[in-house]
């Protein structure tokens, strides 16, 4: 695929999210942890959403997750016409936070997509700066 032909929405990092997106570019899923109360959270921000401490650190997550919920979209968003129907999923990361993603490396069907199935992160480069974290079944390597 030509990267220049990518027609889907492209994230634009902010100062608070740059570390996350730079991590994705390197193939690392970066999360944040509060150094005061230990709470792990996502999306990134400059303080802990649990205790409001401004002392937070980033770390590389395991990349392991479970399928929390999903829909299979039959009305593709602009740029997604070739994929429909495709699953839009929310995964539960091993470290606690949840994130929206797509499930790759398996059929986009209710039979193939079982809730709580184990997943692992994989990164899809879409521009020179941005790689999107997506998830695939653990046994689909």
């Amino acid at each position, binding site marked *: 695929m030509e990267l220049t032909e990518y027609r889907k929405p492209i994230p634009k990092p902010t100062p608070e999210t740059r570390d996350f997106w730079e991590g994705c570019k390197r193939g690392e899923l970066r999360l944040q942890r509060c150094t005061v109360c230990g709470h792990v959270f996502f*999306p990134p921000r400059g303080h802990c959403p649990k205790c409001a401490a401004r002392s937070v650190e980033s770390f590389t997550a395991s990349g392991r997750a479970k399928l929390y919920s999903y829909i299979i979209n039959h*009305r593709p968003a602009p740029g997604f016409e070739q994929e429909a129907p495709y699953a*839009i999923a929310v995964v539960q990361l091993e470290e606690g936070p949840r994130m929206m993603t797509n499930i790759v490396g398996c059929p986009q069907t209710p039979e193939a997509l079982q809730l709580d199935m184990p997943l692992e992160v994989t990164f899809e480069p879409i521009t020179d700066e941005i790689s999107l974290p997506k998830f695939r079944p653990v046994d689909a390597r």
Partner: protein
Amino acid sequence: MKRKSVAIVGAAETTELGVIPHMSQIQLHADAALNALADCGLTPKDIDGLACAGASPVEVAWYLGITPTWVDGTAVGGCSFMMHVRHAAAAINEGLCSTVLITHGESGRSGIGRARFGFAPQSLQGQFEAPYGPFGPPTLFTLPVLRYMKEYGLTEEQLAMVAVVQREWASMNPRAMFRDPITVEDVLNSRMIAYPIRLLECCLVTDGGGALVLVSAERAKDFPTKPVYILGTGESVESPMISQMEDFTTSKAFRVSGKKAFEEAGITHDDVDHLMIYDAFAHLPIFGLEDLGFVGRGEAGAFIAEGNTRPGGKLPLNTNGGGLSYTHTGMYGMFALQESVRQLRGTAPAQVPNCRISVCHGVGGMFAASATIILTNEEP
């Protein structure tokens, strides 16, 4: 707020409803406002408080010729109007204004004079949801459904029954967009939109609007209409992104808002004669019934399928036909409020006998916000 201290004296929808390509969004605000003012014998000059969503209160005030001493532009989606009612009651009680107009107008279907929906690439949604291909509410609001089904055993047939029962109510309402009866098979055979949600489990997309006029309870008796008093109110918000909702089987905003409203009203669930739960999709009444405490966790699907909310049932729900069958402009909350007022005035097309207390519960965004208004026709 103080129970029954404020009343709704004017209430009306736009003259037309459904497909109105000859009117812009701001004109729909005005059409609804002028109808609600005529309903209670007022003109824009009598209004000193203004609240609206979908347009700036500056725009609506100027368009109608109103010079307010209080404005509220709370815009958190479809339940904004329930919040406006709550805020207006507080403002009237505090003496910030005396006569409040709340307006809604939306060219949801025709898109005349309406801003485009979309997320900036630097916004949280633009970075962490949009890249994965959601296409409006049908692909986001529906994300919790499979998790709820797995946790509680809700079946696709039970979910379909929500749409079937609401069509029964709509069949009695001449202004409802869809009135022909449907079956569970019709729902399950309708086009798949976002598995497991089918077309007939999604709300309509229409043009229209509505408006309300509120005054203190002392002044309410001077108006030609039957006053509808505000008994209890609640509001809350949770997350701007559905992916960050705390629990996909229950809405925190629903629970907080509903509990506050029932506490303020000083009533129990058995006191409720009539219920409106904003139904953008078929699972919303299920979440609402449980999070408001009408039934236990995981019980709402069976409760609806058993007929408790249908015409003649013990808890009449979404008696105008709801967003699924009556109308849904985009921010439907105003229409839920209008139906609660009609039921308490005794003027609803599908009138609930001896209706004294109505609970009107709204959602904003994709479970992002919520507000609850409890209304009564019993005098202070």
